[in-house]
């Protein structure tokens, strides 16, 4: 149709091949979006401060023969994870659900109308950043807290067998837990809903289930996210109560994939 093509000539010649959406570019865009919001840094720094602060306090206040003496050394010094997991979960929910509460999602999906790459790019950026940030934090927390423990029965070096591996696994576990929250945020599309859903489903429901008098249920609850993460912060997870490190990582990864998969499926189908 001549009328359709002729006037286009009036537009400055465009580099048809230069501009196109690629997954790497969507990741770059999501990284830019992630780092240009204050809430990102507030929650990330909050999480690190919680881990470091609680870890140092635990180290400084430790008394041999006291209440903590039979607690796993790494678990004790990473006790701040209890607080940090909430902040990382809030950040995860904000990354996805925050786009709906602000309307930003309409811009995001207009730029990337195939939709799902946006969610996977968000997950990649969030996962890598929270993992690295947590790892750096625990690599500082452990040796610093150990300064208080020289000569005690909890004295341990980063280079002792299993310590580094536990710290890496714990950091990966926290990042995976955050990805579950990110997926929940994508499913529920509401910040309060996502945070409430995370606290309810991930933190409270397993505690209730654990109280039920069925061994099968109690066995299953070990593989729930919070319990798996707790296991990852232990140098020697007690076999009866906790999954092994490998099983815990696998369980957390499966939960994260399930949450992200549900989010991705709904993202593809629902109106915005």
């Amino acid at each position: 149709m001549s009328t359709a093509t002729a006037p286009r000539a009036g537009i400055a010649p465009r580099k048809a091949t230069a501009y196109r959406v690629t997954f790497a570019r969507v990741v770059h865009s999501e990284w830019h979006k992630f780092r240009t919001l204050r809430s990102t840094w507030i929650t990330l720094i909050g999480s690190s401060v919680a881990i470091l602060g609680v870890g140092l306090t635990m180290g400084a206040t430790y008394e041999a023969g006291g209440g903590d003496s039979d607690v796993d050394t790494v678990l004790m010094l990473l006790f701040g994870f209890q607080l940090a997991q909430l902040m990382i979960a809030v950040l995860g929910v904000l990354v996805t659900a925050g786009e709906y509460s602000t309307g930003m999602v309409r811009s995001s999906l207009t730029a990337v109308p195939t939709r799902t790459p946006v969610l996977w790019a968000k997950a990649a950026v969030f996962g890598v950043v929270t993992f690295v940030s947590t790892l750096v934090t625990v690599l500082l927390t452990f040796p610093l807290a150990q300064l208080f423990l020289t000569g005690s029965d909890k004295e341990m070096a980063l280079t002792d067998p299993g310590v580094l591996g536990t710290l890496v696994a714990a950091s990966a576990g926290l990042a995976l837990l955050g990805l579950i929250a990110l997926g929940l945020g994508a499913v529920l599309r509401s910040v309060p809903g996502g945070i409430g859903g995370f606290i309810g489903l991930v933190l409270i429901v397993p505690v209730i289930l654990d109280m039920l008098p069925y061994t099968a249920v109690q066995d299953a609850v070990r593989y729930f996210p919070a319990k798996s993460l707790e296991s990852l912060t232990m140098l020697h997870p007690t076999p009866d109560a906790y999954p092994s490190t490998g099983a815990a990582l696998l369980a957390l990864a499966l939960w994260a994939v399930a949450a992200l998969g549900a989010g991705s499926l709904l993202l593809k189908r629902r109106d915005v």
Partner: protein
Amino acid sequence: MIRANGLTKKYGDKTVVDDLSFEVKPGTVTGFLGPNGAGKSTTMRMLLGLDAPTRGTATLGGRAYAGHTAPLTEVGALLEARSVHPGRSARNHLISLALTHGIPGSRVDHVLDLAGITEVAGKRVKGFSLGMGQRLGIAAALLGDPATVILDEPVNGLDPEGVLWIRNLLKSLAAQGRTVLVSSHLMSEMALTADHLVIIGRGKLLADTTVDSFVREAGAGAVKVVTPSATELAALLAGPSVTVTSESPGTLDVRGTDAEQIGRTAAAHGIPLYELTPRAASLEQAFMDLTRDSVEYNTTVISETSVKGHAA
């Protein structure tokens, strides 16, 4: 080129857009008009693939929106609802969109400049006025130098200078050969900007016409008659092509005949006339007449029911 083929959107059993088909051609500004709730925004969201149509299809530049490898270079859109994270600065918002396509930062600076918001580009969007928000939305729409521009109520919240800027911008975009679809609920605004009109009401197509012919048809003017014997005169004027309505006692609105004819009829029957005024064609009136039956929230005008010709 935008093509809508039988677009239909239902929410439950409420049909918001009903079998809507139209074409928007490049090189002209097409006004997308309808009263509030007519389905304009929903139609635009379907064009952009944000809402999936219940039935029907829409293509832009020959393809569904999601089928383009660089959608921002094909279509630039300003949606009615705000689509920006308020915690991010205007520049960072645009950069994050540009990065998805590999659009360089120089283009971001260019559209910031074009929209006149360079000075506030580093500020968080949170503090933006409605008008500045609209300008940022338009900057985002132009980011990819798109062949098609879709703007939903772009003059909302703009000051008179901003309105004038939009008008000129739309015309220049069309003059560059782009396809321009712009929605509004104000006929007067569209009459100044648009060449072509697509008018919808309750999700249905009411008119697909040029502004010129719409004006011409609206020009089949009415005559205002003020007389103490309104009912009597109405009965005398009645004919197959004449409609007489009354908005207040003693005042008639006569269509289908002219002032001379009405004057002669009145004189022949000794009916006094206090006023006999041919009404200039009002676009707004013609638009309201067209969409009267399809206004979602009808404010009932307290008036006498229309005086039909056969009233005794």
